[in-house]
């Protein structure tokens, strides 16, 4: 006679740092950097409220090499966010059926990414060509 004694294997606590989940963890953390950028804007808002002197100090920091490096890193993380966000978009929306067949998920990703490129470019163009 055989007896039942199911063996439960423990889940490794650091699975998120291991293959194949490292990619997922990096994706999530790239999203977290978005708050760091928002914090930079928030600090500017505080400086603005404090008056011209504080504002100019904040502006000075914004032009500093340290700020450039930070914004470079934030930009890379943001680009990764854009890429992964639209990779997941087709998984979050209902299946699109056009002319009797499902729209390929790659197409949805491509359209989403293109819209993002247009939006961000439009923002930059607006700032560059709008007379202040």
């Amino acid at each position, binding site marked *: 006679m055989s007896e039942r004694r199911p063996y439960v294997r423990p889940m490794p*606590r650091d*699975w*998120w740092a291991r293959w194949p989940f490292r990619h997922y*963890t990096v994706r*999530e*953390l790239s*999203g*977290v*950097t*978005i*708050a*760091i*950028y*928002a914090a*930079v*804007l*928030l600090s*500017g*808002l*505080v400086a*603005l*409220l404090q008056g*011209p002197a504080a*504002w*100019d100090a904040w*502006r000075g920091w*914004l*032009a500093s090499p340290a*700020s*450039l490096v*930070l*914004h470079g890193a*934030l*930009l890379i993380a*943001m*680009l990764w*966010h*854009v890429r992964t*966000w*639209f990779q997941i978009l087709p998984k*979050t929306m209902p299946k699109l059926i056009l002319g009797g067949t499902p729209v390929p998920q790659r197409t949805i990703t491509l359209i*989403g990414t293109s*819209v*993002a490129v247009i*939006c*961000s*470019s*439009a*923002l*930059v163009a607006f*700032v*560059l060509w709008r007379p*202040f």
Partner: protein
Amino acid sequence: MPHAPEKRSNAPIFWLLFGAGGTLSALFGVGLILVTGFLAPQGIGIGPDALSYENALAFTQNWLGKAAIWAVISLFFWHAAERLYLTLKDMHVFSDLGRRLLTYGVAAVVTVATAGLLLAIGF
């Protein structure tokens, strides 16, 4: 009855805020960082006084400017909050309450504080 209905989760609130912040940042984030991190402070393509105190104040005193600043700062924080909350959970860091305070709590405080700052700056 084929199943016992599970207790409804409040996750939709945070998930929708996460989604709004994720979409807003995905669409405009790169443009925003280029403008406020590089073009404006370095004076590339924009006049040196684009970021002057008067200009910044005028932008912030405009109700449309206020709305944009509020949406960007608070939704970006809500987006990061959801992701950090889940990642900290994956990493088994802090208690659940600690994680919630550190993520959703901070986002809520930032949302209110930003609104307060914008009101204090006036119209």
